[in-house]
Structure formats: C-alpha cells, structure tokens
C-alpha cells in the first residue's frame, strides 16, 4: 500500500526518536554546539540564541543496576535511566549539560552526571522557583536567567544580543503553535493522525533543531489538513501524569482488544513541554522569558498557589477535558515519583465528579505490557459498560 505523505513525515520524526544520538551528532557535524537538558524548565531560547542546539536527555528503557550505587533505589526510574545515560557515556558528545532546579529526582540524576560522569566542568544548574505562582518568582527568574545567559555567552564565546533572543523566542513560539495545531487534530471524532504519532512528533521536537522541526511540522500539518480522518473512532482516552518517553505505552493504548484512541497527554514529555508562549517583541527579553515560563501548565512539583494552596494545573486539565472530550482518564506516572501521585489523590475526585472513569498506571524502566493491557481494557470495559 502506498504511504500517505503525512506518514512519510511522521517516519522522519520517528527516526529521530529512535536514533537521537545519531541525529544529535549530525547537528554537531554541522558545527552546532549541543547542550543536553534534563528538565523542560530550562529556557532553551537562551541556548538557541547563542547558536547552540538544546537536546533533551531521554532514557533508554534498558534494565540495569549500575545506577543503584549512585542513586537511591527509591528515585524514579526516569531519573535512574537518565543518570544511567551519563554513566554509560552515551551522551559524551554533548558540549554542555544544563538543568533547572526542579524535582529532586531529576536534580540528582543531573548530579550523577556532574559528579561521576565527567561533566563537572561543563554543566550549569539554573536556580528556578519551586513554587511558580509566588509574586516574587518573576523577578527571581529574570536574575537567574541573566546569570545563565552570562554563563552561556562565556561558554559559547558569543555575546547574545536582544535580537538573537527575540529570534529564538519567535522560532520557539512558532514551534509551540505548530505542535498545538497538531494536537488539536485529536479533538476531532476522526482525526487524520493518531495520538501515538502526535506523541512521537512532540518527543522528537525536544531533541531537534527547532527550525528544521518547524519546517517538517508545517508540511505535516498541511498534509494532514488535506487528508481524511482515520476511522473508526473508539473510546477516547486522555493521559495525565509525569515524564514518559517510552512511546510503547501510547501505542498500547491504541492496540487494545477494544477500539480506543489516545487523544491527549498532559505531561512534560508531551503537551506541558510546549503549551505556552513567550511574549514577543518585549523590550526586556529575559522578563518576557520569565513571564512565558511562569505561565506554563505547572509541573506538579512547583504547583501551589499562595493563599489558597490551589493546584493550578487542575484548571488546565479540566479545560483539556472540556476541549478534547475524553471518555476515560489514565493517570500515568513514574514509580517512586513524589509529586504526581500526590496530585492524583486530589485530581481523581474531580475526574470522578465529571463522571469520567479512570485508572492509574505506574511506570518503571520497562513496561509490564500484559498488566497494563489488562488494566486499560478493564477501563474501556467500564466506559463501554461491557458485561463481565
């Protein structure tokens, strides 16, 4: 069967997620400095403005015990796996490793790289507020981003002008808008693209040169707009939770014994990565960056509105539920993750109140496909009211 135009482009994105090192090294061969980052709170625009390409450190899903003598067992498998990448020297080609103070687990994965994997002299930790809704958080971030900018200028031996930053902001915003348009296809009853494919493209965008990514994304969207929807539509499932770069789980959702579709993912490896914009054409670029990043869908580790203790992310989730109309919700988080399950306790009653059935899946380095399949099929049976 002839492949559709969109399939060919999706395959190119899939090739990036399947071969991230090969792809990143090809950028380096073109003369780019590469900066690995471990958390999406890193303002990639500053790196990009200096001519560097930010590459997200992803895990390999290889069962291993190496990191157990560097990190405590009760840290999440994603952080272990990312630390493992450093200890295995899989990313030795990176020129720099950066993170922002985010959850403790990923912070420690970063520390393993710095202490034990040879990155001590080529690393930077950006102090980032742990509660993003405090009034003074913006000012703090401007100062913090300023220090980061200075470090990068020295590191890349290039001064970063306001024009450089503005260009980077626009490239990144363009990327965010395109990704958003892609996800919005999934609002349809018969979208021309599947959820797992959208997740793949989104993950690929986190390691790609954004200009190259934007060109591909634009072509993909144009072709999808001209293509008919994929039938039949099944039970619509939304995922909400923590970092998950194991795309097999999303494929599984679409390959149950019942017809089901993945229609949204609220996580930092999917929509939380890009569902915001940095204000453009502002005189103070660092202030604009701070404003943009503070306006993100909050990571559960940083979400606490002063005065009420409200979790702002829940508002976004309720909006996504309204827009994407899921029949069921899958709470998906890393085993040993602290903030995600704490949120599920409070989020589940809200989802229940909306009359949406849900289930919880706890991720580890490897995925127990059979167990997950049973749980997901049970969820679909509840939704479809299938008699036992």
């Amino acid at each position, binding site marked *: 069967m002839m492949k559709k135009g969109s399939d060919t482009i999706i395959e190119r994105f899939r090739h990036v997620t399947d071969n991230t090192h090969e792809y990143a090294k090809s950028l380096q061969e073109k003369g780019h400095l590469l900066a690995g980052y471990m958390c999406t709170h890193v303002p990639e625009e500053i790196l990009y403005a200096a001519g560097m390409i930010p590459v997200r450190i992803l895990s390999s899903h290889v069962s291993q015990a190496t990191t157990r*003598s*560097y*990190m*405590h*067992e*009760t*840290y999440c498998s994603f952080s272990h796996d990312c630390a493992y990448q450093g200890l295995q020297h899989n990313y030795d080609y990176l020129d720099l490793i950066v993170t922002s*103070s985010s*959850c*403790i*687990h990923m*912070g*420690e994965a970063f*520390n*393993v790289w*710095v*202490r*034990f994997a040879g990155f001590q002299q080529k690393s930077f*930790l950006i*102090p980032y*507020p*742990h*509660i993003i809704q*405090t*009034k*003074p*958080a913006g*000012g*703090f971030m401007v*100062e*913090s981003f300023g*220090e980061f900018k200075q470090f990068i200028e020295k590191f890349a031996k290039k001064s970063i002008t306001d024009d450089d930053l503005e260009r980077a902001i626009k490239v990144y915003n363009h990327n965010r808008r395109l990704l958003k348009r892609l996800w919005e296809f999934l609002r349809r009853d018969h979208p021309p693209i599947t959820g797992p494919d959208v997740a793949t493209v989104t993950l690929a965008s986190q390691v790609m040169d954004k200009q190259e990514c934007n060109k591909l994304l634009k072509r993909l969207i144009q072709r999808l707009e001209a293509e008919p929807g994929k039938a039949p539509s099944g039970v619509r499932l939304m995922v909400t939770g923590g970092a998950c770069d194991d795309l097999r789980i999303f494929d599984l959702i679409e390959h149950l014994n019942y017809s089901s579709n993945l229609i949204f993912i609220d996580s930092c490896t999917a929509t939380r990565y890009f569902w915001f914009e940095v204000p453009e054409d502002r005189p103070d670029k660092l202030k604009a960056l701070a404003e943009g990043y503070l306006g993100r869908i909050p990571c*559960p*580790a940083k979400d*606490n509105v*002063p*005065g*009420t*203790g409200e*979790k702002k992310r829940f508002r976004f989730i309720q909006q996504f539920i309204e827009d994407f109309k899921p029949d069921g919700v899958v709470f998906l988080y890393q*085993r*040993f993750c*602290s*903030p995600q*399950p*704490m*949120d*599920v*306790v*409070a989020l*589940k009653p809200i989802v229940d109140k909306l009359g949406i059935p849900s289930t919880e899946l706890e991720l580890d380095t490897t995925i127990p496909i059979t167990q997950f399949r049973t749980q997901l099929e049970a969820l679909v049976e509840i939704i479809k009211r299938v008699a036992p």
Partner: protein
Amino acid sequence: MAYSLTTWGEFKNYQSTCYRNYLYASEGLRCMGSTWSVLAPLKGLGEDVHIIGGEPHAASTAGTFPEESREDISAAEGAGLGFHSCSYLKLFVGEVVRDKIGITDGTIKEGYPKPDLIWTTHLCSQHSKWYQEVSRRLGGIPMYAIDMIGGGNAEKDPKIVNYVCDQIEEGIRWLERVTGREYSDELFIKAARNEIKCLVLWGNICALNRHAPAPLDERRLIALFPPAMVDRTTDRTVRIYEALFEEVKYMVETGQSVAPDQRYRIVYFGIAHTYGHPEMARILRDAGAEIVASVYTFGTAGNFRGIVNGKWSWDPLDPAWVDELDLSTRRNAISALAKIVLGWPTWQGVRSYWALEQMARAMITEYKADGLLLAPSRSCETDFRNGYVGMQRIFKSEIPTIEYDSDQADVRKMDLPGAQRKTELFVHLMEAHKRRSA
C-alpha cells in the same frame, strides 16, 4: 556515671504545653505548617497564636504511639497516598483522615483540631503538597507556602535572600488579610529575635559535642533540637536554651556526658532512625559507640558559620551577635530571619552535593569521628538520599562507613536484621581502624 539533664523536664513541659495549647485553645489562632518554616511572622498576629509543626509532630507521634502511627500511615495509604510518599506526611495526614490526634504527653484527642491557616515552606517535591492535601481534606484551609530555594551558600546569595524576603513580606500581608487582624511589627520583631537566638544557641550547644566525652548523645539531641520545641519564638524558649547551654558547658567543664562510654565517636547523616528502631541505638550503645554529631539534629534548625572562604565550618555563631542585630524595621527582621533560615545546613545539602560533602568532611574532622553512619530514609527526599549514596562511595576509603536502608517513621521499610548486622560490622570496622591508626 551517666549525667542526667536537669533542664530536660522544662523542655518536655514546654513542648507538651505548646501541643496542648494547639489542641485545646478555646480562642486564638491555630496555625499549622512545617517547622522548617520561619515561625516569627505568625507572631505578629498576636500573643494567642498556637502552632503545630509537621515533622516534629509526626516524629514524636511515631515515638510516643508506635501502634497509632502505623494505623495513621495505613489510613493515609487507604485514602490514596502512595506507599513511597514521605512517612511523616502520611502519619500526619493519617491523623486527619482518622479525625484524631496524639501528642507527646500521651493524650489522644478525638476530633482533629482544624487550623485557621497553614503557613509553611516548600523545597522538596512533597513538602508543601503535604499541606495542600491537609488543606483539601479539611475543606480548604487558607495556605501560604514559602519557596525556600536553598542549596549550598544560599544565605550569602543576595538574589536568593531577596526572593525569600519578598515572599515573607507578601506572606505577612496575606496573614493580615486572611485573619483580618492588625499586624504588630513589634511582636514580630521580638519573635524574630527570639527565633534567631534559639537557633544560634542551639548551634553553640551542638558545638560543645566536639569535646570528649561528648556531653550529649543523638537521642537527647533529637529531643532537644529547636523543631522539637514546636514554637521557638517565645521568651521562654530562649530562656530554656540559655539554661541548656549553661548546663552543657558545665558538663564539658566537669567531663560529664549523658552517655559517657564513648569508645567510638560517630558522625551521623540521616533522620533519626532510633524512633522506629531503638535496636540500632542499643547495639551501638552496648559497644560504646555514640553518635556525637549529626547533620539532621544540628542543622535542620540550627546555625553555624557554614561556608567561610570556600570551606565549610561547624563553628557556632556568637549568641551576642543576635542581640546586636538591627531588627528595627520589618524588612530588616525579615532579612535577618531569611538569612538565618537559608543558612541551615539541611537546606544547604538538599540540592548541593558539594555542600553536603563539605559538611560531612568538616564534621568528621571537627568532631574527631571514628565512623560515618549514613541513614538515607526511603521516603524522605530532603534527607539527601542520593547524596548519601554518593557519599558512601567517597568516604568509605577514608573512614569506616555504613549505610542503612531506613525510614524515619515507617517500620515496614526498615531492613532490621540487615541493619543490625551492618551495625555490628560497623563497630568491628571502627575497632580495626582504631587499632591500625594507634
């Protein structure tokens, strides 16, 4: 002969009084939150503010009511909290779920006393989520969490100090709004000086353990350290710590100790495992091994010189320095408080592996340690779990080192037989090391 602290009764009495006031006060304000917070700002609201802190309350409940605390943890898990979540958090939330509360004097009160507000901190990924959950379960208690963006040397970074100060200042305005009370800077400043004084006095008391024999052991340290006092902002707490300081100085002068058999001096990095597992302490005590210095009891709420010229120092600060602090304005008092709190060693180590290593190195040297005992807690993120794993790699070739697989309050997570064998091995290692060095 073991020395018996004369100030002990006064400490316990004060602690129980604070808890009883929170439980039974018929008027005034009930305030809840982490004792890892600056407490003095609450006191600007009046002289009828009753505080309950999270961690020390959970710790003392685990010690006072082991069975109840297990029920609390189970209740919290039954209500949806994860098996891997902080056990202090679960114990605390479990009491809310079970609608009863136990305090250090042995009282168990049916009907959980609802706080008027929550004033707390955030640093690890669970810290303020703890109180978000309590607030939610109690129907939406107003809550203000301060982002303590600590980490190695933070108290000397103007960017961080200003950020924390601005949040406290904003928090005071919130306190006024949410309580409808007029805020008294006079009361706040008085409380701030008391709070700083207690923390500095505590640093001085700890520093006396450099002597041999060390006057205090870990069991006393954990019971006497400022968070255990519940409220460290009052004149009475200052008097109690001054009295303790004098008493411990006297012990040093006369060569006395609460645990005089100290063949081996241990430096300890971890939350108090002895609450859930006195077996460990017993093995060490029988072998004449005492924990004489511990980052948790010294530095969770206590102040030292910290990083000086790029090197960590456990030297205490002069208590007289506190009397000279210019706290004439609200901002000055906030700034002094923010610096003192950001200077707590436990903040420094949470996100700064280098600070943690420096602290350990300095503590081992300054306290002439024979062994390093690491007890990462399975459920505490801020207990430097990873730092400890890394530290074991670094220190094991320098000094006898062991690492427990432990938890601060959840006995299900402790490898007790393994820890007992490790403890015995640790004692043998220290003996062999001593003989080799002799």
